[in-house]
């Protein structure tokens, strides 16, 4: 391995830009460029069904990336993150209902107004829930997020007059121009890309490094002068807000929202996607979303055994590639490009390390 690395050093040509890209953003650098270009082409290459799958990949991928701000970066696991996805979805849906008054007619301005309602409502929800959850860490944090998620689910499930109860809210038809799957896909792509770009900045800012510091060692973080709880809460709210962005896009996409969007199974989807792609990588959850959503669309086409399929996939990943798919690629590829170890977040990249490490393994 070492010998081959040496020969790569200083090479120009196609490898030098790749090297720069990796130095800039770790494995996520080239992956994001690849995904960015690829996602632009999706509607050109595939038919209506797969364009809709593409939209779903983007929305759920954003949801999972927002979850990873808490998990991969801050080192706490939330089993209630869907509460904020659902709050965002419901905020948009309720605005929709008020604007249309049951007529299925909504102007473009009203439509964007409804979308804008999602993130702040989700952020306020995260502020309230986070206020309690950040007092704890580890399994207690996880259980508390789960409890709050189920509590919010039950509120939405029971409050017929406001949320529609278990019927949810139906007939969320976007304005005519956005009813076309290709147009809605590109709208989603633009919003998800903007949100991902913001998250990218956040994760590489001083604040982003405070998150990593809290993941690594909360005690030490306190003793360098950081109010750990305050930073945990701020991050919890930011993550909730981005989940709300994803949630806002969901209702007009599926034309309806239901209380299950807030449920623990929906939260589990973010966890699964992140594990599949790799929590130690910025692009990990999005890669996980591609695998998960594509597989679901494909497998449910010919069998009802989807839970069995995804269960097997998760099992294999956790057992044989605990750093996720990107962890595997990272370990094989990055040392060749950089002549040193990869591991963008040094979190899950190496099974040897991650087996002993706490938090993100």
């Amino acid at each position: 391995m070492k010998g081959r690395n040496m020969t790569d050093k200083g090479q120009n040509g196609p490898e030098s830009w790749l090297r720069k890209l990796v130095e800039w953003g770790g494995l996520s650098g080239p992956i994001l460029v690849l995904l960015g270009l690829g996602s632009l082409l999706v509607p050109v290459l595939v038919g209506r069904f797969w364009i809709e799958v593409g939209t779903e990949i983007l929305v759920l991928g954003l949801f999972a990336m927002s979850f990873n701000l808490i998990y991969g970066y801050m080192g706490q696991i939330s089993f209630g993150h869907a509460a904020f996805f659902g709050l965002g979805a419901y905020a948009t849906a309720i605005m929709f209902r008020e604007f249309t008054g049951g007529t299925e007619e909504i102007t473009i301005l009203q439509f964007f107004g409804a979308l804008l309602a999602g993130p702040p409502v989700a952020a306020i929800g995260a502020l309230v829930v986070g206020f309690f959850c950040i007092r704890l860490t580890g399994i207690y944090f996880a259980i508390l997020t789960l409890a709050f998620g189920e509590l919010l689910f039950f509120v939405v499930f029971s409050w017929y007059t406001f949320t529609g109860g278990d019927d949810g809210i139906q007939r969320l038809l976007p304005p005519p121009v956005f009813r076309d799957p290709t147009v809605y896909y590109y709208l989603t792509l633009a919003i998800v890309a903007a949100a991902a770009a913001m998250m990218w900045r956040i994760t590489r800012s001083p604040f982003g490094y405070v998150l990593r510091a809290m993941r690594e060692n909360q005690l030490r973080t306190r003793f360098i002068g950081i109010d750990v709880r305050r930073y945990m809460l701020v991050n919890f709210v930011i993550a909730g807000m981005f989940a709300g962005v994803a949630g806002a896009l969901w209702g007009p996409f599926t034309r309806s929202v239901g209380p299950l969007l807030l449920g623990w199974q929906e939260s589990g989807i973010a966890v699964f996607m992140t594990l599949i792609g790799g929590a130690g990588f910025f692009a990990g959850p999005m890669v996980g979303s591609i695998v998960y959503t594509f597989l679901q669309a494909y497998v449910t086409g010919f069998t009802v055994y989807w839970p069995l399929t995804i269960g097997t996939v998760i099992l294999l990943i956790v057992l044989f590639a605990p750093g996720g798919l990107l962890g595997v690629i990272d370990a094989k590829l990055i040392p060749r490009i950089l002549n040193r170890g990869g591991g963008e977040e040094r979190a899950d990249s190496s099974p040897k390390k991650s087996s002993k490490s706490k938090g993100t393994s």
Partner: protein
Amino acid sequence: MARTILEVTGLNKHFGGIHVTQNVNFTMQEGEQSAIIGPNGAGKSTFFNLLTGYHKPDGGKVVFDGRDITNRAPHVIARIGISRAFQISNIFPRLTVLENVRSAVHSHARVTMNMFASADRIGVSETQEALSLCGLVEKANDIAGMLAQGDKKKLELAIALAGKPKLLFLDEPTAGMSLEETQETMKLVDRLNRELGLTVLFTEHDMSVVFNHAKRVVLLHRGEIIIEGSPEQVRDNETAQQIYLGEHHI
């Protein structure tokens, strides 16, 4: 001339029925460099924990730089100028050495709520300075958790220094270091004390380190200060010899 920087009065702490800090009165002048010694379990680390906000005292008062810091949270105390290096190295294992130090630099510069600037561009020179003081420049990009024990202790010190403290607590700064590293580290501590006027309080089991690098020595036993004075005074004190020094064959 010298100003009182730390004033501890009547400090008490119990853990269950054990009185781990008993009515401790202690002051430090700005710019002094002193050591706390005492057998294992004497309450040295507890004393540091009480002063840095990790434990809440049951009674007594701690005044630092004219401000009452009794019962304040660790992060508040850190921000007003007390840094500590831990006995068992307490670092961010999966971040690089540079990122470890930079976190403390950012915290000191109050930029940690900045979410949109690139962390790589803030506090570069301060980070380099702390790294080079502690001899870690070449290891800047190493993963902290993979460092040798001695280097981890150096990093521990670098993180503490990066916060530009006025008062530095070092809990056995040379534990796990080779003889050479020990001398290097203590030379650095002396230099910081002499050149930057940093006030230093350290604990140490190695008596030669204590007697060569502390101007004042405090002997702690069962949570009580038994004697304090110059290294010679403590060495020649009979009670001190009985409690502690005797075991170490001075």
